[in-house]
């Protein structure tokens, strides 16, 4: 790797498993074998921003949603919002309600996937459990009811997307600049409504179960990316939890609102993007603080940290408990992303109920027509993993000339590196390397639930390959699973 002159050993975790996408972690050791720092490297190179150039703007939702099989809906929404801005129209209210509904489905399926399929094996089978069984299949074997509930909840989320937009994944046919192509049928609305109680029950039970076992993770809570940082995300005009529209709020580690109701269109004024040669993922930072001091986190934890309320009864109750875990209502430990995700699940299900109660949801007026009127458009949405920004510039014919996408996961890039370093320092003992130590490094990444590409296949089947390399580049020790 040749990372620095005083570096003499390096441990590599490659690939990191049970995350969406391909990444590796390198742990750099001091001469005395203590951990100096750890780095999170993203190995995907996708090139969406480049190959989209020249395409008509209305193809962008379809193109960009292909960047991910887990959260295509978030891309569809951010992209459609950017296109709304290019054509300069406001979609009819029903279209916005339906887009929100679809988004709730997306958040449910993604959060369920993250919690049950990817992280529950660590949380419920143990960080040190044998890697052969520490996966969704092991979970099905040992805790079948819970695993089934997870699968059911994710299915419900996917079904919502399908009922609204025709397809579970990459439903780009439905969403168009200015709204949506077709309305929601009463039959589909009834279907979603009828399955809500069961989903709500699962979400409540899971949250209860998670809270009851929190005490056994005290050490992880303390050491899993537990550090002060800023938090960024969208909020409603009154400062409530928001996922589709709203303005940006930034809160510091003490719970002080640093900036509020920032216009997402002006994101370039307060978000900078740095580049490091060892990762394909950019490093966004809060401009007033500079790089790398301007570290902030996004995603479920950040959203609950910045929101003063959720706006739905059950989620609001849970938010009160959650906020007690931190100073001035700001929870610092990355481990609590799991907790925040479960509260958001509750919020999404309650929001779906509210959306379906709105009579306008069945209106047939779902699109506003217009053509290219503006030379650029910015679309922002809260993806399951955080604030997602799409920014396009077009020529007079509506052909894309420039694209910038800040993916939710990228906002957390600085935090990833800080978190893996903290965990590695606490748990990794290079002289007696054990699999469970490295799994904790991976587990902290899983807590963030990064979405590095469209790797829906990552279920702990990929091999973990760790190498201990000395200063001469020789492999001193290696472990593979």
């Amino acid at each position, binding site marked *: 790797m040749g990372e620095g002159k005083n570096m003499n050993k390096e441990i590599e975790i490659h690939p990191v498993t049970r995350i969406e996408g391909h990444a590796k972690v390198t742990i750099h050791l001091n001469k005395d074998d203590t951990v100096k720092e750890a780095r999170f490297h993203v190995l995907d190179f996708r090139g969406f921003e480049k190959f989209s150039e*020249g*395409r*008509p703007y*209305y*193809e962008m939702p*379809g*193109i960009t949603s*292909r960047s991910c099989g887990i959260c295509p809906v978030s891309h569809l929404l951010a992209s459609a919002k950017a296109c709304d801005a290019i054509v300069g129209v406001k979609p009819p209210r029903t279209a916005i309600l339906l887009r929100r509904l679809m988004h709730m489905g997306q958040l449910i399926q993604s959060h369920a996937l993250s919690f049950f399929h990817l992280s529950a094996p660590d949380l419920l089978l143990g960080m040190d459990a044998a890697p052969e069984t520490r996966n969704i299949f092991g979970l099905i074997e040992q805790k079948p009811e819970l695993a089934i509930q997870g699968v059911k909840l994710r299915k419900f989320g996917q079904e919502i997307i399908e009922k609204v937009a025709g397809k579970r994944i*990459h439903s*780009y046919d439905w969403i*168009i600049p200015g709204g949506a*192509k077709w309305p929601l049928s009463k039959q589909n609305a009834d279907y979603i409504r009828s399955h809500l109680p069961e989903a709500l029950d699962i979400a409540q039970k899971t949250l209860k179960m998670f809270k009851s076992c929190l005490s056994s993770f005290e050490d992880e809570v303390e050491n899993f990316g537990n550090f002060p940082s800023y938090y960024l995300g969208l909020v409603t005009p009154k400062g409530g939890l928001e996922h589709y529209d709203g303005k940006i709020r930034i809160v510091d580690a003490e719970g002080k609102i640093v900036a509020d109701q920032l216009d997402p269109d002006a994101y370039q004024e307060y978000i900078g993007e740095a580049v490091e040669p060892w990762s394909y993922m950019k490093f966004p930072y809060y401009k007033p603080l500079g790089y790398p001091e301007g570290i902030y986190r996004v995603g479920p934890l950040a959203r609950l940290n910045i929101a003063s309320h959720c706006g739905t009864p059950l989620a609001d109750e849970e938010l009160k408990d959650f906020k007690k875990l931190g100073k001035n209502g700001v929870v610092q430990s990355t481990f609590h992303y799991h907790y925040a995700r479960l509260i958001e699940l509750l919020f999404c299900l309650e929001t779906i109920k509210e959306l379906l109660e709105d009579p306008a949801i069945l209106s047939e007026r779902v699109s506003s*027509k217009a*053509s290219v009127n503006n030379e650029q458009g910015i679309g922002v949405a809260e993806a399951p993993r955080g604030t997602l920004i799409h920014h396009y510039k077009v020529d007079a*014919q*509506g*052909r894309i000339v420039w694209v910038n996408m800040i993916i939710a996961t990228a906002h957390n890039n600085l935090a990833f590196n800080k978190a893996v370093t903290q965990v590695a320092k606490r748990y990794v003992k290079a002289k007696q390397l054990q699999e469970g130590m490295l799994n904790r490094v991976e587990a902290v990444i899983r807590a963030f639930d990064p979405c590095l590409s469209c790797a829906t296949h990552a279920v702990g089947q990929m091999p973990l390959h760790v190498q201990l390399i000395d200063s001469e580049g020789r492999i001193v020790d290696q472990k593979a699973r």
Partner: protein
Amino acid sequence: MSATTVKLKIDNVEVEVPEGTTILKAARDNGIEIPTLCALEGLTNYGGCRLCLVEVKGAPKLFPACTTPVSAGMEVITNSEQLREYRKMTIQLLLSERTHVCSVCVANDHCELQSLANKLGVDHSIFERNWTRKEIDSSHDFLVIDRNRCILCTRCIRVCDEIEGVHTLDLKQRGRKAEVIMDLDEDWANSCSCTSCRKCAKVCPVGAIYVEGEPITRTKNKDVAEFILTRRKRK
């Protein structure tokens, strides 16, 4: 209507058709399907896509069914192992020539190239793909041409010339560099002859010419064409 008819065999089935009929029409009229991407009933055939090549017993070479007239005693084979291989290869050549990405194409699920590829079992291409980056012309109010998806079947050119009668569209260059152009290679918005009739979009077998914002199923709705045909016959 020709008074004389000729007898021939297509795939060992004896058929009788009017003299001058093409092999393609003779086969279709008798329920035998021959794949093609450029031929379209109502337009002059020009034998461009080479998918309808057939074997004729006793002849050393293959013939395009859409432009070869039948003759008495002819024995035509439309579906041999060799022809299937050739057709698969032709589809692969078409796919490799330009940039075909079904997943984000307007014609996805309603594309003749895509469905033919599926039907013939083309699941990969043995040829390196060109990945052309030709500029899209979306200057027209609602008609768009993406030449990266064009397979040069020239249906649009023929329909514009023979049915609409304006001949706005034509080809420039030759071979794989060939491109469909408007008037003397103008931006579509600047074409003074185009009547914006949309026929080019209606006959395009792929997603190269389309109507912006209109579902492809509506653009290519064949019922309208049927309706026009019936009305014309009643005059």
